[in-house]
């Protein structure tokens, strides 16, 4: 009995963790859509959605219901198998990185405070200390990978297929143009994105997301957040991130004025919703990556003076600052969408290859030289 529980315990913990993490992220993503419509409304002097629930707070659920109940149209001459596969690829590749998000610091004893309260109760009195003992120092990440940054880059690079295949299989010239544009764009900007991360990896000496945060929490004040020593890398990463997620001003794959709706012209109902969700989850992932690499992830200087490191309030406060940093990036996305016009495609390509990539590589060389000189 005991050993069976021992084997089952990690599975239960992981199941609960996966459920919480995915549900939480998807809820935030749903409300990002509402926030986007509201903020865009304010920027354009409108009110935005305000019919469903007070202040429009139930709008995401109304949207979802609408997506589910709309008729699912499949173009007659589409390549059926690929047409069905494409949105699944897009959403799967968007959701996978959630497993690596570093949600917060380790808590020394998360459930220890429960033990005295449950001491006298039958069953619970035995179960709680047993669980509390196993929960000690549990990481607040589903999967800790020593190549976390690379994993997220790899999965997002596979996500291109969702868009490219959707464009190809729809048998529509606008879709095909959108698909071609997106694959060209994402290959080009992936390079700049990868190169802009190298500087951070050199400074941190690890590819593990939690390790990078740990590295930022040590060292002199100007190394606390890598945005200070790696400002060029941060700017390049931010610009490349907009291009990678196909957002304004780089939303060429779905440019309404030229391509109707780009790669998802022929998609309707739930399949369109999958693409839509994938785009917003990708935005969230890129914001998490940006926060972890350049803004210290869950680490915020000064919090360790307020609460003892490893305590529950410290973890909660860290988690809240982590979310606040991500929300700041999400707001930036929306803000820029409301402000900037779209690039022309040749401008997009020459900007990526002739400006962003050289700057990113220059930043890598500069970082290597400075680190070498400092360590001499």
């Amino acid at each position, binding site marked *: 009995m005991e050993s069976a529980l021992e084997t089952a315990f990690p599975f239960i913990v992981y199941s609960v963790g996966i459920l919480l993490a995915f549900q939480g992220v998807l809820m935030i993503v749903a409300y990002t859509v509402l926030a986007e419509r509201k903020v865009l409304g304010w920027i354009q002097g409108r009110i935005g959605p305000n019919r469903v629930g007070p202040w429009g707070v139930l709008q995401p659920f109304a949207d979802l219901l609408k997506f589910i109940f709309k008729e699912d149209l499949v173009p007659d001459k589409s390549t059926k198998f690929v047409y069905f596969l494409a949105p699944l690829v897009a959403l799967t590749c968007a959701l996978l990185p959630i497993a690596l998000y570093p949600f917060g610091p380790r808590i020394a004893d998360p459930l220890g405070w429960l033990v005295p309260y449950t001491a006298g109760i039958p069953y619970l009195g035995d179960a709680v200390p047993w669980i509390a003992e196993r929960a000690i120092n549990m990481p607040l990440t589903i999967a800790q990978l020593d190549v976390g940054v*690379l994993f997220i880059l790899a999965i997002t690079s596979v996500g291109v297929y969702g868009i490219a295949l959707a464009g190809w299989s729809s048998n529509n010239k606008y879709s*095909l143009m959108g698909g071609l544009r997106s694959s060209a764009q994402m290959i080009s900007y992936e390079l700049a994105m990868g190169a802009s991360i190298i500087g951070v990896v050199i400074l941190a000496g690890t590819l593990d997301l939690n390790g990078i945060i740990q590295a930022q929490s040590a060292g002199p004040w100007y190394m606390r957040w890598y945005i200070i020593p790696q400002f060029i890398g941060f700017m390049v990463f931010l610009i490349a991130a907009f291009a990678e997620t196909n957002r304004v001003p780089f939303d060429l794959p779905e440019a309404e004025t030229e391509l109707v709706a780009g790669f998802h012209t022929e998609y309707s109902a739930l399949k369109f919703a999958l693409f839509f969700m994938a785009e917003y989850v990708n935005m969230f992932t890129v914001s998490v990556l940006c926060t972890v690499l350049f803004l210290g992830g869950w680490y915020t200087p000064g919090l360790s003076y307020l609460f003892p490191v490893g305590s529950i309030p410290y973890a909660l406060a860290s988690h809240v600052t982590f979310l606040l940093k991500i929300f700041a990036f999400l707001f930036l996305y929306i803000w820029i969408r409301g402000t900037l016009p779209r690039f022309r495609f040749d401008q997009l390509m020459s900007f990526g290859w002739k400006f962003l990539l050289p700057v990113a590589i220059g930043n890598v060389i500069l970082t290597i030289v400075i680190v070498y000189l400092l360590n001499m």
Partner: protein
Amino acid sequence: MVSTVIFFLFAGFAIACAISMVYHKNPLYSAISLIGVFIALAGLYVTLAATFIAVTQILVYAGAIMVLVVFVIMLLNLDEDKPLNRLRYLYVVGAGLGVALLAQTFFIFYAVLKTPKSPADPDSLAGSPMSIGQAMYTEYLLPVEIVGVMLLMAIIGAVILVRRMEQPEMEAVIEQESENRIE
């Protein structure tokens, strides 16, 4: 137990994808199957505790090379009614290579069964990015440099192939293009 199940899952998926890659007439289906093979192989690498190689496999093969392949297939949009029959003589070569590969596989099986088993060290750092990087820049520096020079040659070759035109001719084309833009 769990790892055996996962191994057969990924291995079966890899073989199924490989077979479908060879048998599909539509080049895009073949490309998608090949991506499936790469992802299944990456899964196998993870079960062997080689996460770095697994991630690199996805990043380089599935993420970069196959995107180019899919891109080209989409651009050309080959007609699937016309089978490519002009490479018929390659069947003989293919059969010979297949036999060689089979022999090699059996040899590897034989060699693995012959060698005494040594339990893997769980604390070993082999396969971590740090150890791979250190090995690449100390022990295997010469091969890395040779690969670097070869890649540089490939890049220069690609640029030369694209820019076949003479310089004055090129400038004329650029001028005309920019005039068209202004109009």
